[in-house]
Every structure is written in C-alpha cells, then in structure tokens.
C-alpha cells in the first residue's frame, strides 16, 4: 500500500535560517503534491501545489521541489521567522480521484 514519510522529529532552527522539510513516498504515482500548514487546535491550511511535471514552485519565502524519480518533495522556508513555527503536512493526489493522502507532518520550531 502507499506510504508517505515525513520526519517525525521536530526541526529546530534559528530565525533567519532556511528550513528544509522532506516528504518521501512509496508505492504511489501522484499527479500532484500539496503542502499544508497546521497550527495547534486548527485545521490544515493550504500552502502550495506542485504537479508531477514541475520541478520547482515558489511562493514568497516558500519553495517546493518535486522529484518523481526519487519520489521525494522538499519544502523550503527561507529567512524563517518564529511565526513559521507549525506542523507542515504533505499530501499526494491524482487527477483521477478527489482523494488526498496525507503524511503525518513535521513540526518546525523557529527560535528567535
């Protein structure tokens, strides 16, 4: 069955540094990959979508890469701020289905 892996250990970085989060998957061929942010006590909030034929996508301080050969996506936050502290989830989907398959998320802590 399909499996999505995100680092379960929290990523702890200094403010101003670049945070890099990883999403690996197996037994699945997604048409696209999404990243969400989830704060405690709240539902996930959509950040970015990248399709299988796109290598990289940017939005302000966020950058996502998608390597279908490695079956991996990297999520970067540049010039990180304490307000970026949250849990980040990746989710995979196919055009033929409305379903999203979520990873368990990685918690990011940005120290001031």
């Amino acid at each position, binding site marked *: 069955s399909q499996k999505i892996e995100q680092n379960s250990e929290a990523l702890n970085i200094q403010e101003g540094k670049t945070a890099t989060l990883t999403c690996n998957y197996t037994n699945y061929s997604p048409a696209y990959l999404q990243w969400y942010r989830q704060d405690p*006590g709240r539902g996930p909030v959509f950040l970015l979508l990248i399709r299988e034929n796109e290598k990289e996508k940017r939005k302000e301080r966020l950058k996502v890469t998608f390597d279908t050969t490695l079956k991996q996506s990297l999520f970067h936050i540049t010039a990180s701020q304490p307000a970026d502290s949250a849990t980040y989830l990746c989710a995979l989907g196919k*055009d033929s289905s*409305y379903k999203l398959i979520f990873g368990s998320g990685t918690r990011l802590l940005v120290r001031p």
Partner: protein
Amino acid sequence: SAVISQKPSRDICQRGTSLTIQCQVDSQVTMMFWYRQQPGQSLTLIATANQGSEATYESGFVIDKFPISRPNLTFSTLTVSNMSPEDSSIYLCSVEDYSGRTPNEQFFGPGTRLTVL
C-alpha cells in the same frame, strides 16, 4: 476560498454514547470530506459526502459507526456512534470546490477534539 465552521469544538463523552459533529460552509460546495486525525498521525479520510446521495466510506470505516448526513450544499454532519476510548481523536471536515479536473486545495474546518472516557 471557503470558510468552514464546526460544532462542537471539543467534547468529552462517555463510552457507549454517540456524538454528532456539525460542519457548516459559507458557500455551496459539491463535495465535503470527513477526516480523523489521531495524535501524531496523519489525516485519515473517513468518508466523502455528496448532497443527495449516500456517503462513500473508506476502507476501515462503516456507516453504522460513522453515519453521515448531507442535507444541502452547505452543511453536513458526522456522528460517532457507540463510542470507545479508541475513538478519541480530532475530527475535521473539509471541502474541495473546483470545476473540471484541475485539483484544488482543500479547505479545512477547525476540527472537533473528541475525548472518550
């Protein structure tokens, strides 16, 4: 974008009882989804609710345990029946509103934190 509210935001229930969670959207949407998120785990899709038809349940989830209603295009309920401590979780509803086959983001409600004693 869609704004979603859920009621209740949290509840503590006794085993063997049932709880109905409400999900209200500020616009008409075709598909509504119900997820469960257990501590430290990923979101797991319970079922998809379309207006005017029976909900579609994912493997491991059954209608007797999680009955769903979808009376109109802005509202849905999920009932957690005959609860046990294993049902303690966060329950989230979400919507995806897109036309054609272009995938779009899902908008999530704030979640309902359920604790079963």
